[in-house]
């Protein structure tokens, strides 16, 4: 079951990486980066389930904060550039 989780997350990471590389616009690349951070958070949680030790769980909290701040800043940047 844990292996299936990691395989599914790897497929998701491949999709997000494709969008980062191919994305025609900056907003698509930011969305892909957001998705990759999402995959990291899910993978850390599943690693904690597998090993039974939550040593890396605070990292999930930090990634959630950093992902919010970076997305908000880039959104303001895109909007200011278009004005």
């Amino acid at each position, binding site marked *: *079951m*844990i292996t*299936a*989780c990691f395989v*599914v*997350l790897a*497929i*998701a*990471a*491949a*999709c*997000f990486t*494709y*969008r980062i590389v191919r994305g025609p*616009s900056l*907003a*698509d690349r*930011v*969305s*892909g980066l*957001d*998705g990759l951070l*999402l*995959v990291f*958070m*899910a993978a850390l*949680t*599943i690693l*904690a*389930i597998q090993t*039974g*030790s*939550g040593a890396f*769980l*605070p990292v*999930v*909290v930090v990634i*959630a*904060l950093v*992902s*919010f701040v970076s*997305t*908000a800043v880039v*959104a*303001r940047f*895109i*909007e200011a*550039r*278009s*004005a």
Partner: protein
Amino acid sequence: MVVGELIALVGCIVVMLGGIGLVRGRNPLARSQSLTKAATTGLALVLIGGIVAIREWRDVSSLVLALLLQFLTLPVSSNLMARSMYYRYTREPDLIDGKDELADAIAAGRIDPRT
């Protein structure tokens, strides 16, 4: 704890569906829409699976904090993202198909675009 792993697997599948939607969407707004649904539902399922599976107070507190942060910040950031995409990309042709109701609202003065 098989139940927690099962919930986490469902969450991973939702995240994968968001990735597929991000690849297959036709315009930036459609892509970010699928990603937003996947980020909220998928990560919430994964974290709840972790809470069910681990059941240790020190780790469950981190998971609950991450869940609360995600629920608080993700609608805000995705709303900002969609707003910037709207102002940046809708003037290019064939990006939003059908009727543009927000443009009508801005033209009628019901929404101030710079707030």
